[in-house]
């Protein structure tokens, strides 16, 4: 059994704005072991990023606040730490890679400056040594001619190289956990594949746990060991990659999978879009946030959040539709029919 790095239980993060309380994350729980990769999937505004930022305690306060739940990093309660202690955790124990590599590097400093800064923040290293480390790290993430490249400015780097530099920065202090917030969204497909590879290599070298936030199910299938599907600030389903991809139990998961094109299907099938729009996080229904868009909605869905149901070891779902009925409905869906046939 691998070491348990992170345990998040019943996390709720709300934003108190003058328009009302934005319930961005509601009672989300997950765990992360060493060398494990957790994928958090969901559409924009489903609370994936807020959940990750809550773990790092980077929610802008005001207006944001973690209202409930516990965040435990290797037995340490992160919510009890003060800001100075939390700064020591950031970058050192938990590091983060951001979505847009074009804007996540400071344009006025050399690449080496920025990596060296990350090193010097947490390690007792002099400037020269930090720079030497920066070049080493750049080389490790696959940037050729790293010794000279380290002296260049971000505008002299391509998007893929900048993301590699970001990864170098993130791993500079050998963090336990690497949070990657849509690391490939802003990159083109060939570069995406390379970045995924770099993240995987780094994970193997440094034995980190990775939290991968994305709306790209393909990336999740490639990188993650387990996946958590979020909708409207709640976890609707979670499980291992195989469980969620081949035995999905929540109508929203069906919708996500059904709206993906498949290469293994030769006959022409239409993609099924999920009709409607994600809910306003201020006016969330008391029950399931997916009610209102869900084709199989029942009267109880809107008012009460369904109890957690364990489908198998490590695979859970929150849905009002009884399991047997769910399996029947799923068998009729065009996307899953092909598989059965």
């Amino acid at each position: 059994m691998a070491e348990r790095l992170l345990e998040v239980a019943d996390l709720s993060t709300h934003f108190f704005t003058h328009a009302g309380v934005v319930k961005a994350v509601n009672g989300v729980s997950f765990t992360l072991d060493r060398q494990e990769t957790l994928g958090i999937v969901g559409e924009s505004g489903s609370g994936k990023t807020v959940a990750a930022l809550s773990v790092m305690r980077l929610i802008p306060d005001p207006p944001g606040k973690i209202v409930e739940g516990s965040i435990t990093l290797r037995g340490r309660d992160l919510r009890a730490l003060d800001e100075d202690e939390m700064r020591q955790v950031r970058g050192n124990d938990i590091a983060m890679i951001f979505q847009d590599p074009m804007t996540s590097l400071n344009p006025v400093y050399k690449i080496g400056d920025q990596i060296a800064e990350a090193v010097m923040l947490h390690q007792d290293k002099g400037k020269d040594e930090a720079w030497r480390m920066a070049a080493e790290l750049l080389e490790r993430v696959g940037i050729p001619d790293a010794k000279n490249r380290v002296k260049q400015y971000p505008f002299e780097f391509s998007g893929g190289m900048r993301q590699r530099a970001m990864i170098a920065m993130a791993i500079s202090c050998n963090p336990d956990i690497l949070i990657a917030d849509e690391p490939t969204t802003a990159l083109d497909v060939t570069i995406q594949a390379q970045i995924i590879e770099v993240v995987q290599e780094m994970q193997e070298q440094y034995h980190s746990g990775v939290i991968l936030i994305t709306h790209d199910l393909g990336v999740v299938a490639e990188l993650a060991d387990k996946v958590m599907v979020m909708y409207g600030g709640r976890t609707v389903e979670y499980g291992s990659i195989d469980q969620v991809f081949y035995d999905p139990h929540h109508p929203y998961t069906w919708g996500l999978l059904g709206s993906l094109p498949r290469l293994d299907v030769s006959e022409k099938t239409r993609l099924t879009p999920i009709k409607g729009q994600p809910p306003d996080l201020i006016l969330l229904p008391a029950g399931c946030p997916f009610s209102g868009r869900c084709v199989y909605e029942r009267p109880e869905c809107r008012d009460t959040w369904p109890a957690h149901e364990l489908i198998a070891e490590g695979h859970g779902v929150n849905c009002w539709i009884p399991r047997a009925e769910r399996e029947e409905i799923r068998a009729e869906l065009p996307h899953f029919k092909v598989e059965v046939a």
Partner: protein
Amino acid sequence: MPDSEYTQSAGTPHGSSDVDEVTDVSAVSELDVIEERAERMAEQELLGAKPLGLWADTWRRLKRNKLALVGLGIIIVFMVVGMVQVIAYPLTDGRGLTPYPPNQQNYDLSPEGRGSPPSVSHPFGTDYMGRDILSRVLVATRISLLVGVIAVAIALVIGLVLGPTSGYYGGAVDSVIMRLADIFFAFPYILFVLLIMTVLGPGFVNVFLAIGILSWASFARLVRGQVLSIKAMEYVEAARAQGASDLRIIFRHVLPNSMAPVYVAIAMAVGGAIVTEAALSFLGIGIQAPDASWGKMIADTLTYLWAGSWWMVLFPSVALTLTVFGFISFGNGLRDATDPKLKE
């Protein structure tokens, strides 16, 4: 593009010569564009085929703005003359590096008390006390330069502390600082300066203080706006995710990226400060007699204009106008050159 034009003129064989002319003009301008692009590429090659950095790029565009270059030239002349006077002042016991002692009266040179017009020995003429105007204009450069630099430096320091604080922390801190800035903006500028000068009393140093205290608000507001947009950048969040402290984020990540428009504002503010000093001295609460300041020279000699002694007013006015024009046209050019919306 040339294709469609060709078809068009071919389609109207009896078309007026206007059309041909228009075609010619656009062809020429197109050639210009190509030539310019080639020139730029050659330039880039000279720089080691690297894409241009912010300042190199700004300079390239500034170079094409003739008015801004004239402004820059004036600023350089003003700075050199001013620095010479600043350095010479203590060494010559207040005389400065001038052809005649600037405060030396000589009534022989002021027959009928109207001064003497420009001549070979006194190119700018002499004033009603027979003082050499060229010497006085030169020595007054020192005051203008000091006011420009020190007053703006005071304003900048206050603005660069309060502006980022306001923008970065937001909330109540922001409200308090910005309302304070509003108060400073709401008062008529000259009246406010007069008020402060009355409290501080007239004098050399107090002019710097008054102008500095009054000009911080525009810097603070400018920097605050910049900080607001920069602090939302991902690299700021990335720095925070690395565990950087607020101070480090402000000074290393936010401020350096907020400075470009501040440089433009500095150029403009120096011009403004010089004018304000002239206005204060004109009103008699700035530089005190017998020291020379452009505003004071204009004020003292204005009445002699009606007696026909135009040279007493003209030369200090020209010096003042040219200097301020220099700063403002350079500032304008700099703003245009750093404006990303005007990038080709």
